[in-house]
């Protein structure tokens, strides 16, 4: 006998009742009311979820409600009721071995999506993005930067013109892809910095030009930035973070979760790793073009050393390592760039190859 409540159809009036079965028949016994009886196949049984009260609708539309889920399951199994098959979900949801499998699969697919799926999709999309869209994005970004952290360049106009002419006549002919490259000079509170926007705008700060002792050093930085443009790193980053945000909203079902530090932290860590690979790729691009133009790649290493000796408060700075010894630990964590020594070694290796080729 399964104990529970009996409700008349559509009514909240309830009475204590019991349901019992013999063979193919069920009987509901309720004090002061005639027994209800019928074929077990005619019962409509709600699916089991955890241990919430089970609802059994009788043929006369009255409802029998019970918390004795196990007894109901036994009855369904014994009589081969069709609701028995739906019980498979409850089995999945209660056996630890299935839970372990589900957990493992979820973690694996989550990891694979974030680690490989999203970078792949961002890459494909970044390369498929029409020029009109990248132009719009870059224009907007430069506008915001100009209103916030960038100031007008203090560099003499003749010097700007000379650098721009050099950029157009020496560096641009090395490019095989058609981007609308534009060189912008800006002041940025004495921070040596250079960065690229997706459409081909390259911004270089006064401080960086002052730091450089030769044209070759400036060229090294500019080629590195062109490398970011050619490989569409900026677009990929933007798309990647959009995908992550979207995924977080979908998984957590909550748009406000994105502001949550618990969510922001892993996103941040993933992205800084992602952009380290980008820096290496842009470096390699710069080294190859420099060799092509007859510039010794060692200049890249020289300018980078100068930059990394200086203050660097901006995490978006490119072509710059950010180690000043005391803050090395903290800043290495916040830095989106590969550690300077590694990049210097790379530059020296390319420089050796470059000189070997010259001497041959």
């Amino acid at each position, binding site marked *: 006998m399964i104990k529970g409540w009996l409700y008349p159809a559509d009514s909240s009036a*309830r009475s204590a009742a019991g349901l019992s079965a013999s063979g193919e028949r069920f009987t509901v016994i309720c004090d002061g009311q005639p027994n209800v009886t019928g074929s077990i196949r005619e019962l409509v049984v709600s699916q089991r979820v955890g241990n919430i009260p089970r609802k059994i609708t009788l043929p006369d539309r009255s409802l029998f409600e019970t918390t004795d889920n196990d007894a109901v399951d036994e009855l369904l199994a014994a009589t081969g009721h069709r609701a028995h098959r739906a019980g498979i979900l409850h089995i999945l949801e209660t056996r630890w071995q299935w*839970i372990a499998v589900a957990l493992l*699969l*979820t973690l694996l*697919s989550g990891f694979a999506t974030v680690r490989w799926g999203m970078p792949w999709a961002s890459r494909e999309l970044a390369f498929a993005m029409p020029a009109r869209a990248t132009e719009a994005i870059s224009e907007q970004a430069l506008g915001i930067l100009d209103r916030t952290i960038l100031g007008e360049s203090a560099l003499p106009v003749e010097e700007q013109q000379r650098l721009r002419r050099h950029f157009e006549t020496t560096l641009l002919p090395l490019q095989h892809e058609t981007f609308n490259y534009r060189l912008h000079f800006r002041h940025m509170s004495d921070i040596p910095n250079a960065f690229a926007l997706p459409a081909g705008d390259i911004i270089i700060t006064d401080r960086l030009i002052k730091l450089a002792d030769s044209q070759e050093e400036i060229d090294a930085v500019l080629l590195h930035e062109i490398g970011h443009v050619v490989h569409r790193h900026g677009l990929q980053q933007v798309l990647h973070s959009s995908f992550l945000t979207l995924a977080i909203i979908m998984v*957590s079902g909550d748009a406000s979760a994105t502001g949550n530090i618990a969510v922001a932290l892993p996103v941040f860590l993933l992205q800084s790793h992602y952009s380290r690979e980008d820096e290496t790729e842009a470096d390699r691009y710069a080294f190859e073009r420099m060799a092509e133009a007859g510039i010794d790649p060692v200049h890249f290493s020289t300018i980078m050393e100068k930059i990394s000796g200086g203050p660097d408060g901006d995490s978006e700075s490119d072509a710059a390592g950010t180690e*000043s010894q005391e803050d090395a630990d903290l800043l290495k964590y916040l830095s989106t760039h590969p550690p300077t020594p590694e990049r210097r070694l790379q530059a020296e290796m390319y420089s050796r190859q470059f000189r070997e080729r010259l001497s041959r």
Partner: protein
Amino acid sequence: MEQATRTDIETGIQPFQFTGSGGEYFKIWIVNLILGILTLGIYSAWAKVRTNRYFYGNTQVDNTGFEYHANPLAILKGRLIAVALLLIYVLADQLFPSVSAVLALSLLLATPWIIWKSMQFNARMTSFRNVRFGFYGSLQDAYRYLLFIPTIPLLTALLAGIVMWFVTGSPEPGSYVMLAVVAFLVTWLMVPFLQQAITAYYIGSHRYGQGLLQADLSIKRYYLIYLYMMGWSILMFIGIGLVAGVGMMFTGLGMAAMAPAADGGELAQINLAPMLSVIVLIYIVMMIAGIWVKAYLKAKIRNHVFNNIKLDHVMQLQSSIATGRLFGFYLVNMLLMICTLGLAWPWIKVRSARLMADTTQAHLAGSLDEYVSLQQRGQSAIGDEVGEAFDVDANLDLAF
């Protein structure tokens, strides 16, 4: 005899209880998640129904739980419609930008209708003791409280701006800025009133069977709660500002000493670590203060709303959640989420349901035996599905 004992149990104070457990829900959640992934999101409709049934069914009062009746297929259909609409919007945005603006405007105009439909759907899909809830709010009121009144200040300012332009020819840009500032300020001042009006509409339009639910909410109480919240925020802001200023002064001294070196051509080695740690510390303290403010608002409003919910003359709800308790609850949740990278989510959901149930009681003055499910008027299925699809109940945050 049986009749007599039953009546004794049913009158008086009935506490709400949440009978689920974090471990049990974790298993349901993880199976939902993996089946959702394996079916490319199709299972999510079934997952939603199972999740709702788990939480409704385990929220118990008067010896029984609530029930959620939605058909997963209806929800799936709704989600497909939503995805299709989104695709149309994205495509239009790419190909015909002017069309997409029209689409965005129509979505804005349709929002109250979608929310209204969703309220109907959710009410109708909920039952307690074999009797369905219903939502009978008028569409007109939905538009009044969700679209018309909230946009009055902005529309007025827009109109005034146009008039100004015609009358004076070329007014100073400053007067337009003033107009916009005033409009935003008035909108902002209306927030407590709107929240009160929408909540009263939402609850007062619900029925339990033929029974009428109502919430007599006080506008004054809403404004007082917001006023106190502002007061607390300002006090905390000043306090944090003072402490931070002192901290910055101490760490800033090192920087000032280095400044002359920077001008002299040699690069200064600025010690960033203490500066950064002070900034991080301030950020964390601000975040905790923000959580406290959120807890205060939620606790006070929830208590006020629940203490005024009545079902006919039969039942009166009572909520007694303390700000401190809710604040501690939010903090623990945040730590759990950080430490487990989100895997603690099911436990947090269960903890939340349990906290809300534990602080809620029903005062019964009569029998709940007299209620009967009403036959609902014919309602278009498509509206249900669109309303369901946008899942607006989650976004309409009434803070209770």
